[in-house]
């Protein structure tokens, strides 16, 4: 039938792509679940920022966390003690202003405050590095599986299932037993066992995004694949990635602390919060502050990450509201 065009194509061809995306946006706005927040054409991110800034717990946590990070970075330079030098006149002293041992000293006469801050540097650095590497691995793995689909997807996800079934801390212990306890080996070991959550989430999200009506609409309008990926898939992935990253950080810090606490992570003379808590636990009967300070620091940090994670989830995941 030459010259025949279906009616709806002629009609939509009269609209420019901008007008169509405007229509699509209107349809999205009409969705009763999101009608209030997405009203006056605010972007997802400015909307999310507004909602996050309203969350007091998350904002306070962010401030406290920034303070802890700042103290860990700057503190050891400012304070008059080195983390590994002993003060022979002040061994196991409680917190006091004498000799400016504000948090006291441990049984070897080392200043606890400086040790906590140095330990914080290591714990946070392990957390940061292991998070970056595991998040990257998880995103690449999950996105590949989700995009390619089929047999590749099934195989890749089978490996993830396998990793889940493994008691990871044991393998981590086996790995550090074999490989040694260098800083980067600890990071590597933790990475190997903390990427699966992210891979699963990203894959699921990619799969569901691929079959979304607005992606189909974009495709039907002839939008190119890269543009679909960057305009529609990536911004929607970014939300879950950010949320799961904030969940990964405390998990990773915790794993490092458990390993160090068991004496299988960071080694003396270097220290981390896990090592300090182990030292404190050994001496808690006589000098409980050696336990309580690093323990409190670790718990506060973990609390902060949890609150920030909750805040981000509430801000970025409209379904959860």
């Amino acid at each position, binding site marked *: 039938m030459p010259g025949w065009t279906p009616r709806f194509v002629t009609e939509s061809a009269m609209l420019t792509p901008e007008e169509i995306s405007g229509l699509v946006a209107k349809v999205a706005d009409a969705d009763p679940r999101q009608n209030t927040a997405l009203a006056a054409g605010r972007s997802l991110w400015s909307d999310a920022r507004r909602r996050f800034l309203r969350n007091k717990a998350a904002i306070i946590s962010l401030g406290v966390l920034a303070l802890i990070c700042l103290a860990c970075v700057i503190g050891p330079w400012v304070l008059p003690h080195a983390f590994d030098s002993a003060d022979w006149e002040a061994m196991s002293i409680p917190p006091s202003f004498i000799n400016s041992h504000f948090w006291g000293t441990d049984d070897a006469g080392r200043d606890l405050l400086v040790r906590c801050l140095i330990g914080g540097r290591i714990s946070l650095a392990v957390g940061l590095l292991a998070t970056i590497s595991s998040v990257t691995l998880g995103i690449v793995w999950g996105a590949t599986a989700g995009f390619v689909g089929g047999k590749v997807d099934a195989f890749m996800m*089978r490996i993830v*299932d*396998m990793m*889940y*079934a*493994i*008691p*990871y*801390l*044991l*393998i981590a*212990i*086996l*790995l*550090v*037993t*074999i490989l040694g306890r260098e800083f980067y080996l600890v990071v590597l070991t933790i990475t190997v066992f903390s990427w699966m959550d992210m891979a699963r989430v990203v894959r699921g999200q990619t799969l569901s995004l691929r079959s979304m009506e607005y992606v189909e609409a974009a495709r039907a309008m002839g939008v190119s694949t890269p543009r679909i990926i960057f305009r529609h898939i990536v911004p929607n992935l970014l939300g879950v990635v950010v949320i799961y990253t904030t969940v990964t950080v*405390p998990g990773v810090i*915790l794993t490092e*602390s*458990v390993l160090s*606490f*068991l*004496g*299988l992570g960071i080694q003396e003379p270097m220290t981390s919060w*896990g090592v300090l*808590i*182990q030292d*404190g*636990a050994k001496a*808690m*009967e006589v000098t*409980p502050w050696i*336990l309580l300070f690093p*323990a409190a620091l*670790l*718990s506060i940090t*973990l*609390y902060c990450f*949890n609150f920030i994670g909750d805040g981000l989830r509430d801000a970025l995941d409209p379904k959860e509201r």
Partner: protein
Amino acid sequence: MWSYTLRRILSAIPTMLVVITVCYLLLHATPGGPFDSDRKVSAAVLANLQAKYHLDLPLWQQYLLYLKGLLQGDLGASFRYADWSVNDLVASALPVSLAIGGSALLLSAVIGVALGIVAALRQNSLVDYFVMLLGNMGSAVPSFVLGPVMIIVFAIVLKWLPAGGWHDFELRFMILPIALLTIINVSTIGRVMRGSLIEVMHSNFIRTARAKGLPTRVVVLRHALKPALLPVVSLLGPLAISSITSALVTETVFSLPGLGKLIVNGAGNRDYTLVLGLVVLITVLTVTLNLLVDLAYAWLDPKIRY
């Protein structure tokens, strides 16, 4: 259902095999043999020792021998504890871990589900705040902080219970470790139970049940409880794995002679065969448990069809 069961069992085997193989190879890739000690032994003795542990054979033969041993339930010999096989060490440590972990899991399942139900039905009540607080605490106050704090309070300040140690399954020594594990598990179970019951209570069939005029008790117990328990059942797998983590910490904190302590000591002593044996054992246990949980889930959830 039967074909699904068979498929799941068959797919669990490669997982175990991969873990065992990877661990075994990792172990053998490390430089230094188990008999490179400070004490020099004569060449003849070394040859005898190596023959005894089959170290003179090529790697694949050693591996097959190890697998054969595993199939017969033999985890090999410990390199550090002379005259002890890994089996002997496990046999002495397993009852301790099971007594602590088992009773803690049972207690936390009962308490967690009960607290979760109350919290879900009375939102914003005291119990609800308690469950939420516990849930938050569980993710921010790790067991290796909570354990020592419990010792300070109950053993050092109040002097009610011993700070640690173990004496022939005496209850005094078990209370603190069980309490610690229970608190940690309850925080997860309670939170999940609360969330899932709240969701179920909003579903249509509950509204129908209410509309029929059924009392709340019947609605909750007869209609809402079973579907709400499903997420808790699926939690059992991850919970079992995290119980191992907690067991490592608990047994170290309270110096209990269990599996966790054995692993930590073995890793500290670089007792390769012991750590490998324990990793293999616990992997087999967890994979089996995950399998059972999956099967139970398929059996419980009418929506799942295979």
